[in-house]
C-alpha cells in the first residue's frame, strides 16, 4: 500500500540522460536507414534527397561480388562458431583433470590473456610472425622443408588463418563459462559413479558431459545470432586486396562502399540487410534460449 506512494519521478530523472543519449545515437541511426531508399546526397540531407525505392538494393544485388561476400561472411562465421564452441569445451574438460591448483591457475592466466589485447596489437603481431619472408612461422616451417606460405595473402589459406587466429585469441576466455559450469556439478554424482565402478573416462562421459549440456545448449543457441558476424575488427586489420575474394565480409564491404567510395545509399542498404537478418537471428536465438534453457537477459 505504502509502495504505491513511492514517487516515480526520481526514477524518470535517473533514466533521462540515458534515454536521451540512446534516442540520439541508437534510435537516430535507425531513422537514418531511410537513406538506403534514397539517392542520398549529404548536402541535401535525409529529407532533401531523392526517393528511389529499392534501387540501392537492386544495385547491390547486381554487383558481381555480393554473393561472394555473403558466402565468405557465413562460411567464416560458421567455422568460428563451431571451433569456438568445441575447442573451449575440450580445454575445460582437460583443465578439469588437472589436480594441482597452481598449475591450473597458471595455465588459465596464460590462455585468457590474448582476449584482452586489441586486434590492432594482435594484427601487428600476426603480420610479423606470419610474414612469408621474415616471419618466424615460415622460418620454422622452413626447417622441415616447407616452402614459405603467405598466410595472409593467399585465398586458400586466408579463411583458415582468420578462424585459427580468432580461436587463439578467444578460446581461453570462452573456457571460463564451461569451467564455471563444471564446478557447479554436484560431487555426489561422481561419488555414485565411482561406487558403480566408473573410471575417469566413464565419469566424464556420464556425469561431466551431461552436467555441461544445459550451458552448451545455451551458448550454441545464443551463438546463432552471430551468423553474419565474421569479425570486422580482425578481418579489417588482416586483409588486403589480394584476399578480398576469400576474406571480404559484409562489414568490410559496407565500410569500403560507404566510407571509402562514398556510396552512402548502397552501403546503408547492405547495412540494413545485415541488421534485419541479425535481428531475426538474435530474436530467434533469445527466444530459443528462453524456451529451452530458461535463459533471460534480465
Amino acid at each position, binding site marked *: 500500500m505504502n509502495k504505491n506512494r513511492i514517487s516515480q519521478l526520481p526514477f524518470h530523472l*535517473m*533514466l533521462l540522460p540515458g534515454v536521451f*543519449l540512446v534516442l540520439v*545515437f541508437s534510435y537516430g541511426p535507425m531513422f537514418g536507414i531511410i537513406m538506403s531508399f534514397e539517392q542520398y546526397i549529404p548536402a541535401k540531407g535525409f529529407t532533401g534527397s531523392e526517393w528511389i525505392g529499392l534501387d540501392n538494393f537492386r544495385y547491390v544485388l547486381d554487383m558481381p561480388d555480393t554473393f561472394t561476400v555473403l558466402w565468405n561472411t557465413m562460411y567464416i562465421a560458421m567455422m568460428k562458431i563451431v571451433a569456438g564452441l568445441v575447442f573451449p569445451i575440450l*580445454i575445460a574438460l582437460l583443465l578439469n583433470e588437472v589436480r594441482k591448483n597452481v598449475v591450473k591457475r*597458471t595455465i588459465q592466466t596464460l590462455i585468457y590473456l590474448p582476449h584482452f589485447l586489441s586486434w590492432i596489437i594482435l594484427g601487428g603481431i600476426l603480420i610479423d610472425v606470419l610474414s612469408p619472408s621474415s616471419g618466424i612461422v615460415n622460418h620454422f616451417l622452413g626447417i622441415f622443408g616447407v616452402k614459405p606460405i603467405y598466410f595472409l595473402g593467399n585465398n586458400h589459406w586466408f579463411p583458415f588463418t582468420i578462424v585459427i587466429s580468432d580461436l587463439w585469441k578467444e578460446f581461453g576466455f570462452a573456457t571460463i563459462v564451461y569451467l564455471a559450469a563444471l564446478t557447479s556439478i554436484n560431487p555426489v554424482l561422481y561419488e555414485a559413479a565411482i561406487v558403480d565402478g566408473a*573410471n575417469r573416462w566413464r565419469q566424464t562421459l556420464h556425469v561431466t558431459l551431461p552436467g555441461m549440456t544445459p550451458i552448451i545448449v545455451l551458448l550454441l543457441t545464443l551463438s546463432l545470432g552471430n551468423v553474419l558476424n565474421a569479425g570486422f575488427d580482425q578481418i579489417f586489420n588482416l586483409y588486403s586486396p589480394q584476399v578480398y575474394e576469400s576474406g571480404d565480409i559484409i562489414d568490410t564491404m559496407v565500410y569500403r562502399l560507404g566510407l571509402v567510395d562514398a556510396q552512402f545509399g548502397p552501403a546503408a542498404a547492405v547495412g*540494413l540487410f545485415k541488421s534485419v537478418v541479425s535481428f531475426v537471428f538474435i530474436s530467434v536465438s533469445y527466444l530459443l534460449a528462453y524456451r529451452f534453457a530458461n535463459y533471460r537477459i534480465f
Partner: protein
Amino acid sequence: MTTGQKTFNWFNHVFLIALSVLCILPLIHVLAISLSDKTAASAGDVVLWPVHFTWQSYSYVLGKPEFMRAFWITIERVLLGILVNMFLTILLAYPLSKEARVFKYRTAYAWYFVLTILFSGGLIPTYMVVNQTHLIDSIWALIIPGAVPVFNVILLLNFFRGLPKELEEAAFVDGAKQWTVLWRLFVPLSTPALATISLFTIVGHWNSWFDGLIYMNKLEHYPLQSYLQTVIIKTDLAMQSSKDLNSLSQVSERTSKAAQIFMGALPILIIYPFLQRFFVKGIVLGSVKE
C-alpha cells in the same frame, strides 16, 4: 592410479602447458625483436631472446611526438570514458532493477534499452548521426556515441537485484531518498560488480580503434590504437602486397614497429593481473545464473 591414467595425466599436462605457452609466445617474440639490434632483427636471428640487447627502438618511439600525442589522447579517453560510462551505468541500472510494482514503467524502459542491442542502424547511418551532431574531430566522438553500455547496465541491474531487500527498506524507513539509497547503499555494496565493469570499460576504451579511425579526420586527433592501425597494420599490409617482399625499409623498421606494438599492449599487460581476479568471478556471476 593405473598406468593408463598416469599416461593420460602426463599427456594432458604437456598438452595444456604447450597450449598456454603458445598463447604468449608471439608476444614474447615481438618483445624480443623490439629489444634487439636492427640488423639482428632484420636478419631473422631473433627468436625468444633479444640479440644484441638495446633500448634504441623504445627511445625512438618515446621520442616520437605523434606516438606520444596519440598515447595521451587515449589516456584522456580512458579517463573521460570511465567517468561517463560508469555514471550512466549506475544511474540506469538502479531504476531498472526495481520491480514493476515499485517502478511502474520499468518494463517499457527496459525494452527501450534492450531493443538497441537487438537492432542497430548500421555503420553508415550511425556515422551520419555523429557527423550531424558535430562531434567529428572531437574527443567526445569517442565517448558520447557509446556512452550507454546496455550490456553493463544489465549486468549491474542483475547484481542490484541480488542485494538484500531489507537493507533498502530500512533505509527508506529512516527517511532516505532514492538518490541516497543508490549512492550510499547500492553503490558501496556493489564493489565487485562495479570493479569488473570498470575494468572491462578501461580495456574497451584502451583497445578501441575503429571510432578513432572514422570519426577523426586528422591523424593528430587519433587515439593510440587508431594511430597504431595506421602506422603498423596499413603500411605493413601495403608493403607485403607489393612484390618486393624483402624491401629494406620494411625490415629496418621492424624493431620500432615491434616496440610500438608492445607499448600499445603494455597498459593491458600491467592491469591484467589485477583484472583477472575480478573478471573470472564477474563472468561466473553473470553467466551461470539459475
